């Protein structure tokens, strides 16, 4: 990567980030393959942190691999598994290894994951983690103790534009920006009219917004997400479009839908860019970008 995420977002170009899910186990080959495939096609790659509370190879280790391969990592950090000592220590370590982007998340409950009896830490929350980064940058830790060498990060957070009800979520968004979020990657959006309305609100804040695009692979997946994933709304027209695809071509249709959405967001200049989450199908991200006219 020639430039950092911050430089890319400040350049005014349409920014594309994507996501890599670390493996369950120590076989890093598939992840490295995905990193090599995407590192020069997108502006930065997120490394998920035990996504959905499923224990995996760590996001920090994965971010280092992105760095080693010449990519621009966005380290995802949740507050679920580490208390304030461990989070600060990992931030210092990440900084010394050249990681500059951190996405601050509260994290899913351990109850929804694959270690259901695990203690959820939640010593601090996403807003407080953002403040912690700004505090460490000032040369002091959370206990107000002097640091011998500080950190410097480009800090981000997430928002769910389709949250129901929207009020509490939008206040949380405001608090994240006030706490120091410089970029925001959204939860998946599928209804661009709703997203435009969200941007009417969010566009007033001094923060770069990347619209979340989650690849739909079938009508069944779309219906499942509507019923089971908080803050996801797939309009019926898209479900019908996927259902109407000839047998064996639903994935192709999903890629087409994602590419079309990215293109429209870019053409209408709705926000600073997109964050493409292909969830296990990372190899199709270049195809999405091609359809979107970005490559």
């Amino acid at each position, binding site marked *: 990567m020639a430039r950092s995420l911050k430089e890319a977002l400040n350049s005014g170009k349409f920014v594309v980030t994507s996501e890599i899910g670390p493996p369950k186990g120590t076989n890093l080959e598939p992840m490295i393959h995905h990193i090599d495939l995407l590192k020069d096609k997108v502006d930065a790659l997120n490394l998920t942190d035990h996504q959905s509370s499923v224990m995996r190879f760590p996001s920090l280790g994965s971010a280092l691999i992105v760095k080693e391969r010449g990519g621009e990592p966005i380290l995802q950090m949740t507050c679920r598994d580490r208390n*304030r000592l461990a989070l600060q220590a990992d931030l210092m370590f990440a900084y010394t290894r050249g990681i500059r982007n951190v996405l601050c*998340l*509260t*994290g*899913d*409950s351990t*109850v*929804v994951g694959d270690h259901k009896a695990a203690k*959820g830490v*939640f*010593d*601090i*929350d*996403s*807003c*407080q983690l953002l*403040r912690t980064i700004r505090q460490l940058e000032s040369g002091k830790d*959370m206990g107000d103790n002097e640091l011998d060498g500080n950190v410097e990060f480009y800090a981000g957070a*997430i928002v*769910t534009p389709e*949250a*129901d*009800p929207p*009020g*509490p*979520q939008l*206040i*949380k968004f*405001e*608090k994240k920006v*006030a*706490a120091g979020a410089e970029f925001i990657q959204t*939860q998946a959006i599928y209804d661009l009219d709703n997203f435009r309305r969200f941007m009417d609100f969010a566009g007033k804040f001094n923060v770069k917004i990347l619209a979340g695009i989650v690849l739909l692979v079938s009508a069944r997946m779309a219906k499942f997400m509507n019923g089971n994933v*908080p*803050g996801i709304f797939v309009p019926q027209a898209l479900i019908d479009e996927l259902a109407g695809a000839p047998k064996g071509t639903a994935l192709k249709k999903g890629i087409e839908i994602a590419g079309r959405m990215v293109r429209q967001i870019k053409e209408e200049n709705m926000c600073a860019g997109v964050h493409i989450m292909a969830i296990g199908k990372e190899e199709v991200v270049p195809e999405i970008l091609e359809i979107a006219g970005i490559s």
Partner: protein
Amino acid sequence: MIRSITRQKTPEEISGLLEPFTKIFIVGCGTCTTMARTGGQPEVVRMAKSLQEAGKEITGTMMIPVACDELTHEALEENKQAIAGADVLLIMTCAFGVQTIALHFMDKPVVPALDTLFIGKEKQPGTFDEICIQCGECVLGETGGICPVAGCHKGLVNGPCGGTDKGKCEVDAKKDCVWTLIYNKLEALGSLDVMRRYQDPKNYHVEPQPGKVLIPFEERSEEDGTQP
């Protein structure tokens, strides 16, 4: 009223814990476990019957009015005879009662028949909610009198997480998202700006576990028995 909310252990776990013993004395409680239907009179009777069917000898049963109360010691003394004949006490009270009884009998093993889930409130008959976890740093003044530390699965003090959905919690759709309740209350009060205020990380050691509070010497009196 504050209630200690309990759930009965599985019959398998109870029989495992009682495996080394033959003669059993069963203790129930007339307060919280009666309300929660986990250790009241009917549950004690059912437990005695099922243990008898499993080949155990029940030397007696008793209901203590409030098992966590100091008067429990007197009640136990009254039943000394029946208790003396037992190898073990099976306690169908919350953990406060179990520990009160265990303190009384230094030479008699106790086995809890219940798990204590939380200290809660019976909001309506048959519905118990956790509304305070005794964090030591009350935030109710800034949350419309609704506690997010107890009411949010993650104890979040700066607003909801992304798992909130239609006013419910990501861990269980039967549970309210407390931040939706707080938002609605603050909106009705016309003070949503309070929710926009950044809340610092909590101090999880206001009173380091195990909690212990001593009434200051000068505030003690002979009348209430606190005089040393």
